[in-house]
């Protein structure tokens, strides 16, 4: 067993972990990154398409190019990097944390860290989670696994593909698979509107004349050894209308049905999760309910743009640095999601500082009004031309917008709502 002591241990070497580690190192803290892949970069490395970095760098970069912008600096910043290393548990240790990891190169590694930054990202929702009926042949993949097999392992997952879910990952793979010679027979979306961006619908589906079935579900996957066909049914009042279902012969099914923040380690460490995000409940300092344990990036809530992951992770790192130097917590006021808002992250606001929040709408709406209310009274409002659940909203709040002192009888405190 080897033992290491650091100020901050970052779990995950993807976009969130890289940005957080770099910023923390800049503040002078000793930092270690533990990453389970044999290289840094995380999921960005398999996202070979462009569209990353428009906000962060003002450039249109591919995923690997975006990752390289951080990997280079991490190499020379004096950050300890443990690759091919998997964190097994996090426990309390006096005023800090004991993090145990396993790696082939080092064996058992026990870290003592004053602060831990959770940056583990997400896993994909799979067929089992949504219980699609039928058999279990080869040829059913989550979109991310298929993406990995194509872009990193250089394999062709199948020939005739049906994609479940019109989120960005599914759309990107519709195009990618077409480019490697597959025939994408359909994209099937449960909602009456596409969940991915209009841009991706245009350049991934329309561009390749791929049929898009809105308000439909794949009710069954058939095939003994390999996928042979799927049944697609329209939804009528929320239920599949089997009388109108049709069959699409295919040999591959891709599932792009959502991401789940990977918080098993967090839960085991005693972190309480936010039901709205499936990520840790964090205050205005990105600190979870466990003292000295912070979270940022996709593990905190599922992002749409990596640029926002980077921004959030940097801000989180700054709060970690403040914590390490013994700065006081600040006056935290709870922020709750109000009408038409699924969640607000972080869940609390330090009223003496400027803060940036991310929130997700529950509805599709044009000409919406975003309101921040304190005990029912609007303290800030913003007009938004168009909102939809698949597009996260960024809400900056200046210091002092929320009054530090609230009446003792305030029960609803601060609410962010969309009308």
């Amino acid at each position: 067993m080897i033992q290491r002591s650091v100020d901050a241990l970052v779990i995950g070497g993807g976009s969130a972990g890289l940005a957080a580690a770099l910023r923390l190192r800049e503040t002078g803290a000793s930092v270690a990154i533990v990453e389970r892949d044999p290289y840094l970069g995380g999921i960005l490395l398999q996202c070979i398409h462009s569209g990353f970095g428009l906000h962060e760098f003002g450039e249109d970069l591919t995923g690997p190019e975006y990752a390289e912008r951080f990997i280079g600096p991490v190499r020379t910043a004096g950050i300890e990097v443990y690759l091919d290393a998997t964190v097994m548990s996090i426990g309390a240790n006096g005023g800090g944390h004991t993090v145990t990891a396993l790696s082939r190169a080092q064996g058992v590694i026990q870290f003592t860290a004053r602060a831990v930054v959770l940056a583990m990202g997400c896993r994909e929702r799979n067929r089992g989670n949504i219980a699609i009926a039928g058999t279990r042949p080869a040829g059913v993949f989550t979109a991310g696994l298929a993406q990995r097999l194509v872009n990193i392992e250089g394999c062709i997952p199948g020939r005739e593909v049906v994609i479940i879910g019109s989120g960005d990952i599914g759309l990107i793979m519709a195009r990618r698979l077409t480019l490697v010679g597959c025939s994408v027979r359909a994209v099937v979306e449960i909602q009456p509107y596409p969940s991915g961006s209009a841009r991706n619908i245009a350049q991934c589906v329309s561009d390749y004349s791929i049929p898009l079935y809105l308000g439909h579900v794949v009710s069954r996957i058939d095939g003994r050894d390999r996928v042979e066909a799927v049944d697609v049914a329209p939804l009528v009042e929320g239920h599949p209308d089997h009388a109108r279902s049709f069959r699409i012969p295919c040999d591959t099914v891709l599932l792009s049905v959502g991401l789940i923040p990977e918080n098993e380690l967090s839960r085991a460490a005693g972190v309480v999760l936010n039901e709205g995000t499936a990520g840790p409940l964090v205050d205005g300092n990105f600190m979870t309910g466990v003292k000295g344990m912070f979270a940022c990036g996709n593990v905190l809530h599922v992002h749409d743009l990596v640029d926002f992951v980077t921004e959030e992770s940097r801000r989180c790192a700054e709060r970690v640095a403040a914590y390490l130097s013994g700065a006081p917590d600040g006056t935290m006021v709870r922020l709750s999601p109000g009408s038409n808002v699924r969640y607000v992250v972080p869940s609390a606001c330090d009223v003496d500082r400027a803060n940036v929040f991310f929130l997700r709408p529950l509805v599709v709406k044009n000409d919406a009004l975003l309101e921040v209310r304190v005990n029912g009274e609007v303290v800030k409002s913003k007009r938004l031309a168009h909102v939809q659940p698949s597009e996260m909203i960024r809400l900056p709040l200046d210091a002092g917008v929320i009054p530090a002192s609230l009446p003792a009888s305030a029960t609803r405190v601060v609410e962010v709502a969309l009308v």
Partner: protein
Amino acid sequence: MFDVAIIGAGVSGAAIARRLSSYRLSVALLERCADVSFGVSKANSGIIHAGFHHAPTSLKARLEIAGNRAFDVLQAELGFPFRRAGIIVAAFSWEEMKVVDHLYTQGVENGAPGLEVVGRDRILALEPTLSEDVVGGLFAPSGGIVEPYRFVIALVESAVANGVQLRLLWEAAAARWDGQAWTVRSASGDSVEARWVVNAAGLRADTVSSLFGAESFTIVARKGEEFILDRGARGLPSHVIFPVPTRNSKGVLVIPTVEGTVMLGPTAEEDPDKDDTSTTPENLDRVFQLATRMVPRISKRDIITAFAGLRPTLPGDDFFIRLSACAPHFVQVAGIQSPGLTASPAIAEYVKDLLKGAGLTLTEKTDWNPRISPREHTRDHAPWELDRLVEKDPAFAHMVCRCETVSEAEVVEAIRKGHTTLDGIKYYTRAGMGRCQGGFCTYRVMQLVARETGMPLERITKHGPGSEIVKGRLGSGT
């Protein structure tokens, strides 16, 4: 020339093979699929039954009781996961309590140890996850849980270590008796000669029987759908919970598996298609309805996967284990549905006695080794215990499956033992069985198979030829 050829490497064939391997006999174990337990056994609920469900007059009941008793020793010898968690039959009405009384009487007559009829207070104290509507029930402390495929794999490993020859992807297609021995030909043209043949072919026992000119019967597949809930699922019980049985089935159960997940099911429907292992949304709803009636906190949100198994049933519903009356030197082991796995050690004993009685000379080996070398798992050790393991092989510290905590060393061990399909590796190691259902580990396992066997990625299959994971490589004739 073999002394005995066993057709089918499910739990029955595997147990028989191991039993016979303790004698000076040459034994062949012939399996149709790409790996053992790939037929009926892999979808087994993993329950070691306690011996109260079947009438004392049935062969099932006798073999179930004897089989149940054998599991402690078997676990010590073979090291598969097994725990006597105890079984509870929950009754929700006085009518149902009458059935409980009947089960109790039946169980006592069968010789099931420790059975108790319990009232509401006691049953809720035993199992607090039960619904408050419970009225009472039956407690059978000798009931247990096991990982079915690990059990079958361990039995076969032990048999092979003691000289049994295993042939995979070997499907019996024709058979001829020459007066002394059978010549059995496979679908791919291979042939095996054996003086005695045991038909343990599960769903295809009827087809095999007719190949040998033996008894004519029809195996009807009865499908059972099962649903798995994640570790830490709401409503995880500590005992296996049964409802009161109906005429046709033991009912939909809530099973705490030995690995910590929860299994709900099985359903029971006849299915003409012996290859139809599909699940349905109607049964998902039904199963959850029945399960939450007994354990209210069970939630659909915890579901991680669903699968279906097919039970090989015969009319009359009892085991059909006997020397064939029409085909020479041929033993039928057919209709082995529940409690087949529980009974398997006793089935093996029974078949050995049938063969002995029919004239097969059984000389015990002096060097028979009942044990297989214990397997190491990273997940079984606390961090400070791992140094020793890691020193032995650093690959124990390299995680392949994060959800089930499976290390590279364990996956490589599976591959080196001949499990080269993703399902085979999954059953051996649990890699791919967790909450992400292989999303993270699939390509890692594929890379290890490629590295260890030299197989190109596009030849690696899910469960045998025809189920290749990927169809090709980029840049090669796209």
